[in-house]
């Protein structure tokens, strides 16, 4: 529980506001990094503060403060009231307290071993084990291992009776080996990101992954460049994550469709009239927004406006059904949405964000998908990403490629890239694997002022027919 009583400040705000809310957030992030067997970074950050929110003349406005005394909170509310009173006459849309319905509830990440009691020495041992395991060849010039341990506590209160408490335990691990020779270098990484406890810090597992990525980095260093041409493409889950994120998640955000994001991240090719009719992809494509996914990075019970989080289908059988929009965007657009009004920290107002956006498993075994490809390539692990501001023309690169010849995996290739246009690409979806894996990232950027948010994406491997593939210059 926060060490203050929000109620006096909320009552104070109600003297001028039609509704008031207060979101308290406390987050500690411990970052440990090792490079070439030596400590690189030992850093802990503690962020703590409150976002005070008021509704004045149908307009929600915000003021953030780290002064959690009653006087400090009242000052922040007064600031929010003054600014919101001055801006409300120019609001984009009139809202009411219906858009902040009263809720109560709790959420706790599913950690098996509490992060709070995970010894720093164990984390360091894991990172060192990975670093040492990568030392298999002098060509492996850089061996790095990094872990961020994040514990977040969010309490949300409102003048109409909301009180939610959510506690998140999150871990983000990256182990990376760079092999270099002459002017050439190749990097291979392993990531493990999600809502976990201390159970993920297993020295043997870190050493195993370190050995694997170092071995594969050396393979890539000796491999030929990825060929160029139009061919069938199998994307493994650690690249599907990025494909889903950039070409499904962002274009379906209702605030983008409404134009809020036009000046920064961009607009969307999706039109309001597309919901219910646009054939986004092949009939094998089923995409969900699922903040209830166990261990996924962006699972929660309530968004930052207090909306209860539920699993919803965004795309069913390839047809667009629902957008990623909060109650405010739903009200403005008249479109169905989800509970995704999220902020990065106490000092930012919530906006429409992805949470866990997943491609649901299909029925194909990976071996069968490979067997169905005469001439193609299998790509793993995102390395490069770029897409236009309407989320149409993308170009993505991967760390690792395996050629597929006559239904069998063939040699490793380096610098594999592919490009396409979103709806055309998803309509080339020819098979969906039956075994999914879940990945996540801490760093999805969006918004003005800007915010990085955590997202999770689950997906099986998928096969796409006839994709433009190419390699590097070197």
């Amino acid at each position: 529980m926060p060490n203050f009583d929000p109620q006096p400040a909320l009552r104070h705000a109600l003297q001028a506001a039609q509704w008031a809310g207060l979101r308290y957030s406390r987050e500690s992030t411990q970052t440990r990094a090792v490079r070439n067997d030596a400590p690189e970074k030992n850093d802990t950050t503690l962020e703590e503060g409150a976002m005070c929110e008021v509704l004045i003349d149908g307009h929600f406005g915000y003021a953030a403060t780290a002064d959690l005394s009653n006087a400090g909170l009242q000052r922040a509310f007064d600031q929010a009231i003054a600014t919101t009173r001055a801006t409300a006459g120019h609001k984009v849309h009139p809202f009411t307290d219906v858009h902040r319905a009263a809720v109560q509830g709790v959420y706790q990440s599913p950690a098996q071993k509490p992060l709070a009691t995970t010894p720093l020495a164990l984390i360091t041992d894991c990172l060192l084990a990975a670093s040492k395991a990568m030392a298999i060849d002098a060509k492996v010039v850089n061996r790095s291992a990094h872990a961020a341990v994040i514990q977040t506590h969010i309490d949300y209160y409102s003048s109409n009776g909301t009180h939610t408490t959510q506690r998140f335990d999150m871990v983000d691990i990256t182990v990376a080996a760079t092999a270099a020779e002459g002017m050439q270098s190749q990097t291979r990484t392993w990531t493990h990101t999600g809502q976990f406890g201390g159970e993920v810090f297993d020295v043997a597992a870190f050493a195993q992954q370190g050995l694997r990525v170092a071995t594969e980095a050396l393979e890539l260093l000796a491999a030929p460049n990825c060929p160029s041409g139009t061919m069938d493409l199998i994307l493994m889950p650690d690249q599907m994550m990025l494909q889903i994120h950039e070409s499904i998640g962002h274009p379906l955000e209702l605030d983008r469709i409404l134009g809020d994001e036009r000046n920064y991240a961009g607009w969307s090719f999706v039109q309001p009239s597309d919901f219910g009719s646009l054939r986004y992809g092949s009939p094998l494509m089923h995409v969900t927004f699922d903040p209830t996914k166990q261990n996924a990075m962006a699972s929660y019970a309530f968004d930052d406006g207090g909306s209860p989080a539920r699993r919803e289908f965004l795309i069913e059988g390839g047809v667009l059904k629902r957008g990623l929009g909060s109650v405010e965007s739903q009200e403005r657009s008249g479109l169905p949405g989800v509970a995704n009004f999220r902020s990065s920290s106490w000092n930012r107002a919530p906006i429409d964000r992805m949470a866990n956006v997943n491609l649901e498993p299909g029925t194909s075994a990976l071996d069968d998908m490979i067997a169905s490809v005469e001439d193609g390539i299998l790509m793993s692990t995102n390395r490069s990403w770029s897409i236009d501001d309407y989320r149409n023309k993308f170009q993505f690169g991967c760390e690792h490629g395996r050629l597929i010849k006559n239904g069998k995996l063939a040699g490793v290739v380096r610098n594999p890239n592919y490009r396409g246009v979103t709806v055309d690409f998803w309509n080339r979806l020819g098979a969906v694997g039956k075994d999914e894996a879940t990945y996540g990232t801490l760093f999805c950027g969006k918004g003005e002022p800007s915010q990085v948010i955590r997202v999770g994406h689950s997906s099986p491997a998928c096969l796409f027919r006839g994709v433009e593939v190419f390699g590097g210059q070197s």
Partner: protein
Amino acid sequence: MSQSPFVTTVRQHFDAVADCVLQSLLPREAATLNLNAEETLFVRFNNNRVRQNTNVEQIAMGLQLQGAGRTAAMSRTLSGNVEADCAAMLQMLTQCREELAVLPPDPHQVPVENHGSSDETFSGQLLAPDAVVDAVVGPAQGCDMAGLYAAGSIVRANRNSKGQRHWFATQTFFMDYSLYNGSRAVKGSYAGTHWEPAQWAANLAHSKHLLALMDKPLQTVKPGQYRTYLAPRAVADLVGMMGWNALSASAWKQGRSPFKKLADKESRLSTQLYITENFGLGLTPRFNTLGEVSAPAVQLITAGELSTLLISSRTSKEFGLVANGANESEGPRALDMAPGSLEEKDVLQQLGTGLYLSNLHYLNWSDPVSARVTGMTRYACFWVENGEIVGPIKDMRWDESLYDALGDKLLALTTHTAIDPAVDTYYHRALGGSRTPGALIDNFTFTL
């Protein structure tokens, strides 16, 4: 001009809390403290109306503690209450000591030293919070404008246990915006320390003029190689990629720098290219988080050859290089690209037939070893024939190596330059920015 009350309060607060921490160090300990504070009003606009307004007041202090050859760092939000913040920072000092006890030795530790002191405070004339919306949207009446207004005070400060003291405070604003005619858009930015209604009106008028050019028939250009003019802001986007490991000495030594061939003298850029880390632009303080003060100007690229990479003290220690005041991330903080000889009035004529790109979007390395970058065109980008603008283009994807675009393919740089102040607002308002000319490039590669 009077100093912001926030800045005055933060200064007193920083000194009090820093004294509290530094006076509590044990004899064999050394520490560095950094402060990052802001008081900002953000107003987000869509369709010339207010989407969200947020006041943010935040102070964060970082502590780096060294002892027994180990290094630990912690940072936290401060409440603004001296007693509470001293107690919180002392608790953090205790936690750092506990960490030092279990950490392995840090072989690349940079000892705490006194690198001198500095004191700079710049005041501005900002709009009163309740006057912002009318001042911004008034001249934009009738426009479909989206964007962000941000204004207020920003503070960076540093002290250490060897007596070093740095202080930098500034009051600034920016209005980063775009204007729309349906899906056709132009980008604009107005930034400074003193809001002048006439300047804002003139800035908007220029953007409206550009938007009118977007009324011409939309051109579809096939993928291929085209003679291309990048306006200064597009050049800023392109050379901004040098901040993604290219100019980092640590990345070079770790085999991760896209400029490895440049650093190893296997490749070179155009002899027209001169790039400096130039603190004379006044966009950011010269001191870094260790309190080291960079030279006023550090020549990075001279006539297309690398003069030096950005080298932090930690990298210097690890790899035996000479540090040059770079920050820990070894990215440029005030990149300044020298102008050339192409007059602005001659740009279209010299372009002849090809593409005029005002802005680029979403850049990323597509083949780091070759310093190849991919990205999109965005905003006011035109197809030009025989020196005349024919019409705006549909967005195009491009994919081009910096060794080529800023190498043999670079035909000319313009005499005019533009300052692109940082408008990043992740976590807090950023300082810094760049100054770049426009660039005429032959056979720029468009792929989709």
